[in-house]
């Protein structure tokens, strides 16, 4: 049985961004009460704060990337809100800002060693009002890494994703590898096996029944089986309506014994972005079940307790999280090379010049145990436009690094026009690494 599909297209347009989602609406949508999407693609357009009146930043991706984006943004926003209002000293000036907890490195990413591309997507606080978004595997059509988001942009992005999640449900892709199945509840997988087995049995009966002669002459001896196998995602479709209650946030709308039940008068409560809507298969009821999609959320701010409990390595060690970036440019990933030597992957000479500059000047402060990382944005004339510290330690030690002041002589002028981005890694043992960042 071939299910009919109809095109789906939506635009979500908060003031500073546009999210456009396209795909096909499954005929099974009627059971879910809202569109079930497949072959989903999205395009996100963000205002570029680095260039007033310039071209917006365009990002594209597929369903899993949209899920990862939704999860990343929603988790980041919630963690931002989780920071206590009291006891904060939120200076509002970026660069010197150290009010927010340091982002947590992607330890889960290095542990599992898979889906590195998606893990590279993350958000990081620069201040209460400024946030850095590294889009990871999202395809950027214009200069896009890293993206600086104001807090209103972050709000708009979260709102667009929230609206999308509230409206549509994206179906798992049919050619999903085993890793995707990790997000599907066990019961659903078991049900798929049962249905497939039933299909096989029926087909076998038909083949051996008196009326099977005409079936046996067909090209496909078992159309039902092939249909099921080619689209396992469709088997999951009935789950969203059934799982609406069990997967809604326990605080609002959960059937848990605790009296934190659904608020009777909450105006249009949108489902949690990472609940059933975005990934119906990723909501196992067993809290101990593996939740692979969550591992895509690479970096999140730590709570105060976590910040106090241990000094963690800085975010984005080039060996792990920026593996994608490094690989894309063939730059040495686990580089332990001499600081000032020319590296093969220095695609523009300014990378080596910057390395040489800092190798001559970097004196690790006493007591520094963490690696400091910065994104250096160059002006077209080679002076420094700005340095974006990545992580709290980088913010704290900014004034003790040899990073030149804005618009001071730094390196030679890059060829072409526009800004260049260089990732600077200052290690406590005195070593210096520089890499070219995408977006040049």
């Amino acid at each position, binding site marked *: 049985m071939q299910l009919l599909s109809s095109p789906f297209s939506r635009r979500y347009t908060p003031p500073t961004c546009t999210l456009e989602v396209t795909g096909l609406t499954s005929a099974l949508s009627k059971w879910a009460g809202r569109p079930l999407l497949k072959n989903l693609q999205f395009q996100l357009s963000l205002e570029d704060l680095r260039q007033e009146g310039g071209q917006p930043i365009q990002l594209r991706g597929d369903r899993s990337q949209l899920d990862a984006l939704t999860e990343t943004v929603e988790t980041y926003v919630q963690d931002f809100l*989780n920071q*206590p209002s009291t006891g904060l000293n939120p200076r509002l000036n970026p660069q010197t800002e150290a009010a927010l907890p340091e982002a947590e490195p992607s330890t*889960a990413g290095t542990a599992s060693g898979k889906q590195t591309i998606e893990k590279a997507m993350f958000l990081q606080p620069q201040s*209460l009002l400024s946030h850095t978004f590294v889009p990871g595997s999202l395809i950027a059509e214009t200069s896009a890494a890293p993206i600086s988001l104001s807090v*209103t942009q972050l709000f708009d992005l979260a709102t667009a994703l*929230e609206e999308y999640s509230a409206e549509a449900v994206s179906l798992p892709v049919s050619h999903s590898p085993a890793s995707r199945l990790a997000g599907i509840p066990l019961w659903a997988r078991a049900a798929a096996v049962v249905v497939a087995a039933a299909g096989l049995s029926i087909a076998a009966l038909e083949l051996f029944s008196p009326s099977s002669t005409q079936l046996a002459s067909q090209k496909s001896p078992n159309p039902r089986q092939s249909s099921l196998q080619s689209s396992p995602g469709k088997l999951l479709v009935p789950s969203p309506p059934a799982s609406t209650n069990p997967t809604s946030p326990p*605080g609002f709308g959960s059937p848990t014994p605790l009296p934190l039940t659904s608020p009777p008068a909450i*105006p249009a409560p949108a489902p949690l972005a990472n609940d059933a809507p975005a990934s119906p298969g990723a909501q196992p009821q067993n809290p101990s079940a593996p939740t692979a999609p969550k591992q895509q*959320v690479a970096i999140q701010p730590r709570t105060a307790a*976590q910040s106090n409990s241990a000094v963690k390595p800085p975010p984005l060690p080039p060996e792990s999280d920026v593996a994608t970036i490094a690989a894309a440019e063939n730059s040495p990933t686990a580089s332990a090379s001499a600081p000032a030597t020319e590296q093969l992957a220095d695609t523009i000479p300014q990378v080596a010049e910057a390395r040489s500059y800092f190798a001559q000047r970097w004196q690790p402060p006493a007591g520094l145990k963490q690696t400091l990382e910065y994104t250096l944005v160059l002006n077209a004339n080679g002076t420094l436009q700005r340095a974006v510290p990545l992580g709290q330690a980088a913010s704290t030690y900014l004034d003790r690094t040899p990073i030149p002041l804005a618009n001071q002589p730094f390196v030679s002028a890059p060829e072409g026009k526009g800004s260049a981005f260089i990732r600077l890694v200052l290690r406590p043992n005195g070593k210096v690494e520089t890499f070219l960042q995408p977006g040049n």
Partner: protein
Amino acid sequence: MDNLVNMSPRPPTSAMVDREAPLLRFPAQPDLAQLDSMKAQLDLVLLALEAFLEIGSEAILQAATELNLAHLLGDRVALWRLRQSNPLRKGTGGRKKLDVEEARSLVLISCYLAKQHQEKIRRAVGLLEQLTANHRQPHQTPLLGDYLDKFTNLYQERMSAETTPAALSSLALKLLIDLLFYSSPGGSRRLWVALLERMPASPVESPP
């Protein structure tokens, strides 16, 4: 202790990727420090709304009526008793407990008011961004200046903790940004989760 808000702080070792986990694990005994934190945070969110929107208890009670929560917040005394559960408040004669229904009501009312005035909140946050980018102080604009003054006055009038104006301004601005996110359709869920996840509140500290 029955029917008290039941929650526990995030274990320090828990991975942040496990965001829903605290909601799925409800311990038998509530954490008193976290309870105090929740009461304090809720009261402060309402305080920020009062200061920014220049509203009083009447508007809050009106919102309660519109949300069919009047049975929990029928009059000024009931509202005062709820908010008096904030441990940061002056005086000791206030109500000590805040049950789940009452906490939820305050969450719903706060987000309802924030949603009603989302445009104004957004304008203020956008203004704050512009001022910060231009290295100007928030006090230099009437919208933010009036809010900061009102918030500081209300805080000092009601709370027992001694603190500096600078620290209070920081608190007020963080609350203003938070209100923007609470004004979205999922704002109630965000505030609720934030209340559950936040570390125990302490009086506003002066900047180092």
